[in-house]
């Protein structure tokens, strides 16, 4: 059996990030805290990427997510299905600097998802209103044939 391709190291979980932020805030002088409170409050949200492959097994997907507004990608995690539990491929440079990210993964497991499946999750820090759009770039069945499942985003899980 061919080994699974290496995946990027998972980004820090939001909880860890939040804890670090709290510790940092505790170490700040009072005036710095006052300045921080003067700026718009930021919040961390998760954005689930849901691919609906219908009756077909989803052997590969590639999705582009674009944000508008002030938002920063802080992490990329895997999805719910075991075939896509590991974090997908993504471009760390794009995560750090842009409002656009491409995530992609494939699986050669025999147990592949069908129907609507959350295949990945983005962790985002928002400041003010933010909107998200997703675009399917590629998808394939286990027989390597390409097809066009639908994709949608589920924003929630405010932390």
């Amino acid at each position: 059996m061919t080994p699974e391709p290496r995946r990027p190291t998972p980004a820090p979980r939001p909880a860890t990030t939040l804890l670090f932020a709290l510790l940092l805030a505790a170490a700040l002088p009072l005036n710095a805290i006052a300045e921080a409170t003067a700026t718009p409050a930021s919040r961390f949200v998760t954005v689930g990427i849901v691919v609906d492959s219908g009756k077909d097994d989803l052997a590969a997907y590639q999705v582009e997510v674009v944000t508008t507004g002030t938002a920063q990608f802080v992490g990329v995690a895997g999805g719910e299905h075991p075939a896509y539990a590991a974090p997908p491929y993504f471009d760390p440079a794009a995560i750090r600097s842009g409002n656009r990210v491409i995530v992609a993964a494939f699986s050669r497991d025999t147990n592949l998802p069908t129907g609507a499946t959350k295949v990945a999750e983005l962790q985002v820090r928002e400041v003010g209103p933010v909107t998200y759009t997703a675009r399917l770039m590629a998808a394939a069945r286990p027989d390597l044939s390409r097809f066009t499942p639908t994709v949608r985003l589920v924003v929630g899980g405010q932390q």
Partner: protein
Amino acid sequence: MEERLHPDYGEIEAYRTGEAEPAMAAHISQCSECLAALEELKAVAELLRDEPPLPPLSEQRKQQLAAMVRDEGARVRRELGLWDMTGHPDNADLSMHLRGEADAAVAQHVEQCEECQIGLAEIAEIAALLKKELARAGGSPSPMPEHVDQKIRFEARRHAARVRRELRLAAMRRWAIAAAIVLSAGGLLIWRQMERGTPAAAPRVDIVDALIASYGSATAPVGASYDVNGDGRIDDDDVDGLARRAVIVGNV
């Protein structure tokens, strides 16, 4: 385009008397500037036509005429703006300064320049000697005949025009050399770029290509598209490379 130098006074005179070389004659016959000079020369010749031949000149007379030519040349140079205060005034300028006829700029330079003051003293000494010799020879020199004066002025103007042309040509040569160097360097760069060839753009891939490559050479064709590391086979490194390339923003 190359600018031809015009023939000098002697060559135009040879053309007037039918003694010019064919190439020179062809130039003069087609050149408005030379034809204008020819007309002036004809006018001078007309003035000279009834004049008796000049007797042999004494050495003093020759020096006197030479000084007059220099003075006239200096006057024309100043009129044409060719005199440059970055250098020293020449002997003609100093002679005029001695007579109180020089420009204020010359006078100002001489007052501040020790070298010119020495030259001025020498000229004053020579002038005094000449004056003494002339007085002993029989009076002051006669005024310059009109036709000689006209001829001198004409020659001085032609000389100044030639200097201007030569300066202009020298500037054009410098520009031409600079342009040739720039063009050559640019051409060399373009040629080297063409020699190297444009680097092949990385083929666009997506995650499905990585999936296909994960099945190895049995499924994926061994080629430039899938053999990312160029080792001639499709393996996990290539699969990983394809997947990473697929998610680079701007790659697709």
